[in-house]
């Protein structure tokens, strides 16, 4: 089954049309998308670098993760919301864009990984998990979120 009809339907929505017809709406939403990406990326990197043994040693991993979680979830929500709006304005172009699919695949994996394995490992007490699984999880997390960032920027260069 092809997703193309769904993508084509998205293009006809009022929201999509409004953004497409406006000169400044798309750039402004894009900039907001970037701001939320910066905050999201910052929290992801901070927690992962802490796990890898650098950044703020007096903050235990679990506390740092809990501390930054509202900002991480908040910026993720903002990125998803602004990203959906950008999507609605040009779904047909995105359907044929390779980087878009790379980004969506990385994003799905990154979200899944963050809220399951990664969360479990970071919130566990120091004694409960060894350092190796945590460090592996940190590297996987950085790689997945980097894929999202690079794929995202590359959408603008394709097609």
């Amino acid at each position: 089954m092809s997703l193309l009809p769904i993508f084509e339907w998205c293009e006809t929505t009022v929201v999509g049309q409004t953004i497409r017809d406006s000169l400044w709406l798309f750039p402004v939403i894009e900039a907001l998308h970037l701001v939320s990406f910066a905050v999201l990326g910052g929290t992801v990197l901070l927690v992962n670098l802490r796990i890898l043994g650098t950044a703020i040693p007096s903050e235990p991993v679990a506390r740092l993760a809990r501390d930054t979680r509202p900002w991480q979830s908040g910026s993720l929500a903002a990125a998803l919301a602004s990203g959906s709006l950008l999507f609605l304005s040009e779904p047909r172009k995105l359907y044929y864009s390779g980087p878009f699919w790379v980004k969506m695949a990385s994003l799905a994996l990154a979200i899944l990984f963050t809220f399951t394995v990664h969360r479990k490992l970071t919130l566990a007490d120091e004694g409960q998990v060894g350092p190796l699984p945590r460090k592996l999880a940190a590297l996987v997390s950085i790689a997945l979120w980097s894929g999202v960032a690079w794929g995202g920027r590359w959408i603008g260069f394709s097609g």
Partner: protein
Amino acid sequence: MSLLPFCQWLSETRWSIALHESLWAYPLVESTHVWSLALFVGFTVLLDLRLLGLSMRLAPASEVVRRLRPWMIAGFCLMVATGLLLFYAIPVRTYQSIFFRSKVTLLALAGVNVWVFQTSVWRRVAEWDRDPVPPKGARLAGAASLLLWICIIFAGRLTAYNWFDCDRQPQAAIVNWAAGCVVESE
């Protein structure tokens, strides 16, 4: 003095043309510039949030600064290096972009903000290092930094748009002045 002749010369150099026309190098530099946003601006935001008493409240402020600094310096170098390359690929248009000019101005203001912070309230950090919510001066610096960096991201993103480019005449005199457009007088 105008930097326009210099930018024109720059745009005619071999490597500038090569970078501008490259299929892979330019996007690679651009996406690295965006990726390093997470490292540099992301960490700046987290530090600002600590100064505002909104995150990592139990960690001493001086420790957050000390431990984030090497990463922020690395991120900053990456941003500046990739940013300079992006400028080098498209010098004249970028130099005459009001968004790019705003971005440079805002960057300078962000630098001033750091300088003021470091020479005032940061000098007395020992007095408030463990306060969950730092004193007013530190909170002000954090808020100013947050606001400036959001504006810098906006200005940077908008530099890609040609709404006020010099080749779109006639334009309002103030736009031509701000962008440094050279307009033939009639």
